[in-house]
Every structure is written in C-alpha cells, then in structure tokens.
C-alpha cells in the first residue's frame, strides 16, 4: 500500500530533520558530534512509538490494520492448506451457483427490454373471465383492435403481429425461415429506426398492395452479403415476389431473435355487423406517458364492449365466460411470464445452498479456532482487546470468502456460458444473460455477506478469553469450549439440516411433478413416429396441388422400408396451426336443447390415426373406403362426447344436417381418446376428425405423420427426398421424431427439476460434511472421556450409540424445523407443480428419509472412531 508508506516516509523525514537540527544545536553547545547525536535521540524519545502513535491517529488507520490483518490471513491460509481448500471450495460452490442464477434472473427478468422507454410497452389481449380458450397464448381480435385503436386515449397506438414461417426460394433449395407479419405501426411503437431503407407505410398493409419485406440485419448480411443495393431487390416468399424496402438495425429483434424478416400485416376490417369472420393476433401497445396499465385496460374493455353482439367465431376462439375484458400487461412481464415462477424458486433454492455453505464454513472456523487457540491466547495476553481479535478473525473469514467468491465467479462464469446448451430451447431472453459488472458486484456482495455470516459468530466466540484460566494452564481458556460454543455448533447443524431438507422437499416436488407430467397420456403413442411439416406454395391451384402431392407422397412413403403407417393432417401434436369449427347440434343429440358446439377440426387422411397411434375407445377408425362412401364418416374424441352428446353409444349416430363444416349426411364412426395437441400440461379440448377429400384439401401446413417399426429417424432421408422429388416448390421443416417433440415440450419443467435437484444434492453433501466434521471434532475432544467410559465397562455399541445419538439429535431437530418451514413455503411453488399438491406426502417423506440416511452415514465414521476408544488413552491424556 504505497499511500500508507508515503505518509509514513513523510513522517520519518520530518523526524530526521528534527533530530538533525537538535544534533547541530547540541554541537554548537559544545558536545562532541557522536554524543550530540545520542543526546538528540534521547530528547526525542522512542521514534518507533511516535510513528505508531501518529499512524493510529490517521483517518486511514483502520484500513492499514485491515491490510495487516489480510496479510496475516493469507499467511494463515498458506499454513493451513487443507482448511483453506475446504472453505474455498464450499464458498466457491455457493457463491458461484448464486452468481450464475443471479445473472440469469437479472438477464431474463430484470434487464430492461432493448427498446426505448420499454416500461411503456404493453401486450394487449382480450378474453372472457372464466372461459377456457383453445388459443395457446393471450391474443386480441380484430373487433377490439379497430374499436380501440381508431381513437385511443390512454395508449399511443396498438400494433398487431403474428409469428409466421415463410418458404424462401431463389437461394439454394426452398427453405423455411422464421418471420413475422406486423402492422406498419409496430416499428414506430417500438421506437426503432431502420439501418437502411425504411419500414412499412400504412398503405402497404392493405390487401392487394405491393408485397414488401423488411430484413433483419443478420438475414441481410447472410443472404445479401450486406449489399447496400439490396433495397429494392426482390425476395421470393411463399412463391411470391416481395420487394425489400428496408433493413433493421443490427441489435434489433422482435418478438424474438429467431425472426429474420417482417412482412406487413393487415388487421381485417369488418365488412359490417353481419360479418361473421374474426381474426386473432398478438398485439403490442405503447402507453401514453404517465398512464397505468389498469387505466388502459378499462379504456380497452369499454371499447371492446362497444362492438355490440360478437360473432359466434369470437366465442369459439376465446371461449364462453363473462363479458369481454381487455388485458394490458407490461411486455417484459408477459415475455417472461412462463419462466418467472421457476426462476424465483431456483433463486430461493440457490440462496439456501449459500446459507448452508456459510453454516458449514462457520463450523470449520470454530474447529479451526480451537487449533489456533494458543496463537490467539498469546495475542490476548499481549494486550489485543476482544474487538481487535474479532476484527482480525473477521478479516480472515472475509479474506477467505472473497477468495472463494473470486473462484465462484469463475465457476459462475462457466455455468452461465454453458447455459444456452443446458437450458430449454424456448427459454425466453436467454440471449440477455451476460456475466457483467452487475454479476461481479453481486458476487462481491455475496462474498462479503457470506464472510460476515460465516465468520461473525465464530470470531466472537474465539475472541473471548478467560485470561485467568489461560494463566492457570487450563486447555479450555477460550470461548470455543464450553456449553455456549457447543450450542453454537449444534445450532449450525440444526440450521443446515433444516435448510437442506427444505431444499430437498422443493426438489422432490419438482421431480415428482415432472414424473407425473411425462406419464400423462397425450392421446398418442410417440415411439417410432416421425413428424414433419410441409408447406406448398400458395400460387396456382393450391387445393389440387396439395391433393396430388399428398396422394403421391403417402403412397410412396407407405412402401418405404420399415414404414408401418403414414398419414397427414391439417393439425398434429405440437403443430403450429389451429383450426376450430363451430356448429349447431340438434336437441336429439344433446339430450337437452340445440347447442352450439365448438371443436378442434382435424382434417386428416386415412392412416393418420394409425400413424399417430390414437387410442380407439369405441367404433372404428377411418378406412381407405371412407373417402369414397356416400355417408361422410367422422371421428370425435371423448371430451366432445362428454361435453356435447347425450348418453348412450356414440358410434353409428347419424347427422342428416351435417356435422362440423361437413354439410352432408354424416356418421360418427368412432370415438378416440383425447389428444393433448399443445402439450402434456394442457386441458383436453373437444375434437372432431374429418377426412381430407376434393372439396376439403389440407392447405398451408401439412402435418405428415409416419410410423415405423424401428427408429423413426431412419426414415428422415426418405421423407425429405420424397418431398423434394414430388414437388420442387415444397419446403419441409421441423422434421423430427414425435418423441423428441414431446421431450422438448417438457424441457422447462425438466430443467427446473434438474437444477433444483442439483442444488438439493449440493445441500445434502454440504450438510453431511458439516455433520461429519463436527462429530469428528467432538470425538477427538472427548477422547479422554470416551476412554474412561470404556474403562468403566461401556461396550463398543454403547459408544457408537452415544455419538450417533448426539449427531442424529441435531439432525432430527433440523428435520422437524425444515418440514415445518417447507410446509409453510411450498405453496408458493403451486404454479410450478403438475399433478402434485404442495404438501405431497411422498416428497415430504422421502426428503427427510434421504437426509437421515446420509446423516447416519456421516455419523458412522466418527462413531466407529469413538468405539475404538482405548481406556489407556484416558490416562495418557490427563
């Protein structure tokens, strides 16, 4: 520390001058030079003491002492490598895990969105209170959009957008890329400026306007080689030429980073009050400054209700419930709503790990303090006050915890770097997770808190000396012995057990709920099934093209090696399209009065149900003859029967007036089990299945399903090859196995369960190490006493029981406290749980059992050491 040195050097110079002047004066008085110098020094007094006094008077004195203590701490660490390593590793694990979780929580939940004034950006959606909607996410209808956005007061504007995938042709072979159709308003609302060219003009939204496209900076670099002349060139999307009008800035993205280009989206205007069609989309708004979302919400709700009677289609999309209500939520919250509960639980869990680590290190400090009692005693005897000793010990623990924090930072860094590979693909905003100054500051803060938490109590005990006892030569002179110190050790053990059991219960609940989730029957058999989405260009005669394509593709696919069944549908599990039919069911069928039925309307080819492995509950599936039969055959699912049909056999029921969008004599030929199209954690929806036929082609998205006898990945080349061969304009994407899609759909709960289970394992290990070290210490301290017991006839069993009992008493108390704590806290996890209650008996039973078993194992080694106590030892040690 140069600045301490400089000031001390200053003082030394001053003192030198002083003595020199005095010496000269002494010489003038007639002393010989040597004597003059000695006299001058005598007059001055003790130079060292003066310097020390001056130093103590300095404002930075405490800092100098701190540096001194830190140096001492480093020396002590070097002398006790084992102790230092144990502390460092424990703290590095705790702080590293916390820093990594902090950077995730900050990046995903707290970092502002990368748009100007992000606080005023809101997602707007509508719904009916209490209704279940078949939509996968909250959306807005064109009814409300126009009623509100034509004259908004609380918002500056609303923009509609829908994620879309486009088939891009003209580069290599047709490829599918992620894009979005957006209102011209979107870019101004986000506050974005183009890097070159322009964004959309409002007139470009209109039907029949010139087709235009805005490119992302990345797409422009990749496909156009960052050519400034790209503006004005054409890009063929879905078979139609679009003019490139602009390029977005490099860092711009919306709604997420996968989106490579944008096309204009026109929100349909109603032709009149009789217009029965409704379109839905995502909507983004910008609040006027100072307006709360609640105020915007009430204005929006009033606008939505001003529309008057809503068309039936709106009920089909939004479900039936209370009067229509508009929801206005901050864009940031809405973006991360799916992961927030899990992140909060992970943050709490990792905090518990750090607390356990601190308790462990505190115990290490206590044991370590005993070993260096003599050193501290000498310091105390030489006049170091209690405060001074506490300070020295605290500086030591802080030095260790800061070193541990530095290690932890490296660990956290690598964890955060590995995160994109570990976390689920659909985890929002993962790209905003960085290790930056904030993470550094967090790690530093966590280190200091950990240092004080783990060091304070041991330091206070260690610095308490009974000098008289010390003088008498008793070994237990310090506060590290006796009932109060052993109570502190016990309390630390109890705390560790309690925290560990809480964490284990939390992890157990998530693991159990994940196990429940993956055991859910989605209504299909995902093993050995290949699924693919195929898109044909819109141009020409799309219906005829689609029919011919499917006929050729399915016929040839079914002849492929190992193919058991093949079919196609407009929808399939995890497909991106949703088709809903609404129709009137006659009173005869409902057993009550005519009812408006709403159902997912599947249009499928024969072979579809077999390929997916749909469960037949009643009647039969489609046959090859059905498409040519006079009577239309349809299938319904169990939920449809439950919601709409009167009791009795369903297969064979006929509908003269049609069924679904079918307008001919129709017969329900079979009932199948409910298919959870959008994921295992969703509710079953009523479904009807119609056959694909000339008047009802599968357009836009063709979901191809192929069942094989072996690994379905084996037919990927076959399917890709057939698609290319049969229609050169066709583009296939998401070619993968159904099992992969199922697994990906539960990746978030799996991630949360895995991470919390890892934290639980860490907590368990730390608690076991803590228990082991304290018991080992106790046994070594009680060697004499145990020897006496052995001499007086205690058996090995007695001694083992003695030590085990002592260790397990703390653990059991901790378990009880932990169970109570968990019972109070797990209901906060309710939103994360699936099919498991927050007070799940299995989790609440298994976690304590596991901890108890590990605690027994941790106690066993010290207990056996105690059993080996030698009666002669008793004599030697006294």
């Amino acid at each position: 520390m140069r600045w301490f040195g400089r000031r001390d050097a200053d003082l030394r110079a001053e003192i030198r001058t002083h003595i020199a002047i005095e010496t000269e004066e002494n010489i003038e008085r007639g002393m010989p030079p040597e004597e003059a110098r000695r006299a001058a020094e005598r007059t001055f007094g003790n130079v060292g003491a003066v310097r020390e006094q001056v130093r103590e008077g300095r404002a930075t004195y405490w800092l100098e002492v701190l540096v001194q203590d830190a140096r001492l701490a480093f020396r002590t660490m070097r002398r006790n490598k084992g102790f230092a390593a144990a502390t460092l590793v424990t703290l590095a694990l705790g702080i590293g895990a916390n820093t990594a979780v902090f950077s995730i929580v900050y990046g995903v939940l707290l970092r502002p969105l990368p748009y100007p004034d992000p606080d005023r950006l809101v997602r707007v959606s509508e719904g009916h209170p209490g209704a279940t909607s078949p939509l996968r996410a909250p959306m807005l209808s064109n009814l409300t959009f126009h009623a509100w956005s034509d004259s908004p007061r609380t918002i500056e504007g609303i923009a509609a957008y829908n994620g879309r995938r486009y088939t891009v042709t003209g580069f290599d072979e047709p490829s599918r890329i992620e894009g979005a159709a957006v209102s011209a308003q979107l870019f101004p609302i986000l506050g974005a400026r183009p890097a070159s060219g322009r964004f959309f003009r409002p007139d470009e939204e209109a039907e029949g306007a010139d087709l235009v496209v805005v490119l992302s900076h990345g797409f422009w670099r990749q496909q156009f080689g960052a050519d400034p002349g790209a503006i004005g060139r054409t890009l063929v999307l879905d078979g139609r030429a679009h003019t490139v009008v602009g390029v977005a800035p490099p860092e711009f993205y919306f709604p997420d980073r996968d989106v490579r280009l944008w096309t204009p989206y026109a929100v349909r205007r109603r032709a009149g009050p009789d217009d029965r069609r409704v379109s839905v989309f995502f909507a983004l708004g910008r609040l006027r400054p100072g307006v709360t979302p609640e105020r915007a919400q009430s204005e929006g709700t009033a606008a939505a209700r001003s529309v008057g009677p809503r068309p039936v289609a709106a009920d089909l999309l939004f479900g039936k419930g209370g009067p229509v209500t508009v929801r206005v939520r901050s864009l940031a919250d809405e973006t991360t709503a799916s992961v927030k509960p899990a992140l909060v639980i992970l943050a709490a869990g990792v905090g518990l790990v750090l607390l356990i680590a601190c308790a462990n290190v505190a115990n290490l400090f206590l044991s370590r303090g005993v070993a260096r009692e003599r050193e501290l005693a000498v310091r105390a005897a030489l006049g170091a006050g209690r405060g001074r000793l506490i300070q020295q010990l605290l500086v030591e623990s802080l030095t260790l915890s800061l070193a541990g924090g530095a290690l932890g930072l490296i660990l956290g860094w690598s964890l955060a770097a590995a995160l994109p590979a570990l976390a689920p693909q659909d985890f929002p905003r993962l790209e905003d997770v960085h290790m930056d100054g904030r993470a550094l500051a967090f790690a530093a803060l966590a280190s200091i808190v950990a240092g004080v938490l783990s060091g304070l109590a041991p330091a206070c005990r260690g610095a308490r000396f009974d000098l008289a006892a010390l003088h008498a030569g008793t070994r237990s002179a310090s506060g590290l012995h006796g009932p109060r110190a052993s109570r502190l050790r016990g309390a630390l053990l109890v705390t560790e057990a309690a925290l560990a059991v809480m964490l284990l219960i939390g992890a157990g609940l998530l693991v159990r709920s994940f196990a429940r989730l993956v055991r859910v029957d989605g209504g299909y058999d995902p093993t050995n099934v290949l699924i693919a989405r195929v898109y044909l260009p819109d141009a020409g005669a799309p219906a005829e093209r689609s029919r011919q394509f499917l006929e050729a593709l399915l016929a040839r696919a079914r002849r492929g090696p190992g193919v058991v069944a093949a079919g196609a549908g407009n929808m399939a599990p995890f497909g991106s399209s949703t088709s809903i039919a609404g129709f009137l069911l006659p009173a005869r069928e409902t057993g009550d009065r005519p009812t408006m039925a709403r159902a997912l309307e599947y249009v499928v080819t024969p072979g579809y149900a077999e390929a997916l492995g749909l469960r037949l509950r009643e009647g039969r599936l489609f046959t090859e003859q059905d498409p040519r039969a006079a009577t239309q055959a349809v299938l319904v699912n169990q939920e449809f029967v439950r919601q709409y049909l009167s009791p009795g056999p369903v297969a064979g029921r006929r509908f003269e007036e049609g069924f679904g969008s079918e307008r001919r004599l129709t017969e329900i030929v079979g009932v199948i089990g409910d298919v959870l199209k959008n994921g295992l954690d969703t509710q079953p929806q009523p479904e009807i299945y119609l056959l694909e036929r000339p008047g009802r082609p599968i357009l836009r998205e063709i979901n191809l399903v192929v069942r094989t006898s072996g690994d379905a990945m084996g037919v990927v080349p076959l399917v890709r090859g057939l698609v290319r061969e049969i229609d050169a304009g066709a583009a296939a994407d998401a070619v993968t196995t159904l099992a992969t899609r199922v697994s990906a759909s539960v990746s978030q709960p799996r991630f949360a369960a895995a991470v919390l289970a890892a934290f639980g394992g860490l907590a368990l290990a730390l608690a076991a190490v803590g228990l082991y070290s304290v018991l080992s210490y106790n046994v070594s301290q009680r060697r004499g006493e145990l020897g006496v017991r052995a001499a007086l006839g205690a058996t090995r069993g007695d001694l083992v029981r003695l030590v085990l009992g002592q260790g397990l008493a703390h653990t059991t108390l901790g378990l009880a406290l932990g169970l109570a704590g968990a019972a109070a806290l797990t209901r906060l996890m309710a939103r994360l749980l699936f099919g498991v209650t927050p007070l799940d008996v299995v989790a609440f039973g298994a976690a304590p059992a596991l901890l108890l078993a590990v605690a027994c194992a941790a106690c066993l080694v010290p207990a056996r050491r105690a059993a080996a106590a030698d009666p002669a030892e008793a004599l030697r040690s006294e």
Partner: protein
Amino acid sequence: MRDTDRIQLLQGTLDMLILQTLVFGRRHGHGIATTIQRTSEEVLLVDHGSLYPALQRLERAGLIASEWGTSDNNRRARYYRLTRSGRKKLVAETGKWAKLVGAVGRVLGLPREEETS
C-alpha cells in the same frame, strides 16, 4: 538544571502550548519544541517525540495547517501554522486555563498575585 526540577506536561496542555507558540508565525517541529522549552525557562519538559502525534491531532482537527519548507540552515522541514479556528480555540482555551489555575491556586492557598483575567 536537574531533571527533577522539570515538570512533565499534563495531557492536553501540550496542544495549547503548541497553538501558543504558533501565534507569532510558522515553525517546524523542532522549533516548536525548543520554543516551548525556552519560553518556559526550561521548566517544562517536552519529550520531543510526543510533539508529533499532537501535531497530527491538531492538524486533523483543522486547528493548524502544515507545508514543507526550507529551514534556516537549508534543511527540508515541515512547517506548521495556526489556522483561524486554531486562533479562536487558543483564545478560548487560554481563558479556561486561567480560571483553572486561579481555582487550583485558591484551593492550595497560594498568594493571589498570579490571578489574571
């Protein structure tokens, strides 16, 4: 003069003496020590070293200020001078001291000639 005739300084009085010696201008540490000794007619014993913690204390309190300078015999020395608040403090302390001396003197039954106001 024998050492037994010298008087060890009371804690706190040294501060006052230092302030007093600086009334007529800046001095370095050695100068202050010898001035105190000389003006007290060699009665007051100042352990020269004890000056420095006191000087630092006064400087931190803002009663004196210091800077490096060159002494009469061409040595680099740190010079101390009185600040405004130091001057005020000295006046106040001198008054208190006179009262104390008077009071102690009366208790000890000394003649009152030394009493000043």
